[in-house]
């Protein structure tokens, strides 16, 4: 009889343990699948990382507010009287691809990538005097679907992950003097991770000042 009671107690404890475990999994989910949505504060912090890349010369030199691109880390006006032209691809006698081929030409120091072109004026990240716009203003431009070719958060993330001319910023080739061009302040993986956090937080923008 005593043995039966012990067995019954063990069985009850086992059933209780199984129930408790299932309850925990149902309530919180398995630890390895646990995801926590970033807060708005997380998103704003991540946006500042994204912004630090967007205003780096490799990116912002082709996001001008003017009729010309810029070049170099000092972001001076592109030489040779280069003009923005229709679609940001230059003018007939001097299109971007007159010099910029599908890949970097390290032997001549000319950077290149597929369909080299300027960002549209709707995606300008500078003022008419070539000064970078504020974090808040760039964020608003990037998230305005009437200006950004109708990209939502997921599309922006994909753009930052995969677009050829975005990727070029981390493989910008050699200058004519043979030295390497500088890259943005974050590694591409960090840039994508920051973009993902910002997107998952709902693409929050800093308040305008």
């Amino acid at each position: 009889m005593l043995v039966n009671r012990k067995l019954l107690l063990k069985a009850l404890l086992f059933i209780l343990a199984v129930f408790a475990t299932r309850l925990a999994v149902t309530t919180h989910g398995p630890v390895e699948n646990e995801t926590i949505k970033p807060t708005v504060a997380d998103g704003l912090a991540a946006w500042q990382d994204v912004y630090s890349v967007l205003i780096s010369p490799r990116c912002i030199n082709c996001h001008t507010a003017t009729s010309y691109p810029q070049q170099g880390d000092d972001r001076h006006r592109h030489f040779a009287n280069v003009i923005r032209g229709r679609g940001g691809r230059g003018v007939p006698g001097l299109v971007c691809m007159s010099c910029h081929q599908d890949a970097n030409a390290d032997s001549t120091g000319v950077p290149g990538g597929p369909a080299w072109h300027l960002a549209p004026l709707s995606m300008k990240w500078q003022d008419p005097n070539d000064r970078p716009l504020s974090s808040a203003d760039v964020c608003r431009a990037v998230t305005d679907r009437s200006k950004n070719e109708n990209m939502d958060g997921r599309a922006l993330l994909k753009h930052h992950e995969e677009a050829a001319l975005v990727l070029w910023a981390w493989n910008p080739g050699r200058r004519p003097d043979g030295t390497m061009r500088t890259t943005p302040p974050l590694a591409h993986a960090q840039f994508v991770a920051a973009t993902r956090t910002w997107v998952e937080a709902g693409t929050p923008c800093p308040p305008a000042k």
Partner: protein
Amino acid sequence: MATYQLTVNGQRKQVNVDPSTPLLWVLREDLKMTGTKYGCGISACGACTVHLDGVATRSCVVPVSMVGNRPIVTIEGIDKDPIGKVVQNSWVEKDVVQCGYCQSGQIMSAVALLKATPKPTDENIEESMGGNLCRCATYVRIREALQNASRQLK
């Protein structure tokens, strides 16, 4: 060194050169086509302009390894193009040339402009030709010749 098959003015040419050699030097040194000029060597002046698959291209900064199968047209072959012929005749008619060094590049850019914009405005001409420098300052006659050629195009 590597071997490349190029199509220049409709003719197949084979060259054996270093892949990093700019197209300009392949044309001038290997193919002995010296109509295309060396000016600045950094794509700033336009003297080396040729057409690469119809695009006015600065041959001094394009390594031959990047040309691929794209056809090349130089000043030696531009008269085979109907617009090219009109432009060359207009250049003669308006007596554009002074020393002449930059003019092959000027003509190649002018043809590219008229192919894309048969009736260019003065602004179109200034923008499109603004990257082709002329130390003799024949700019006024270049504009006149371009407008003259435009009027002759149907």
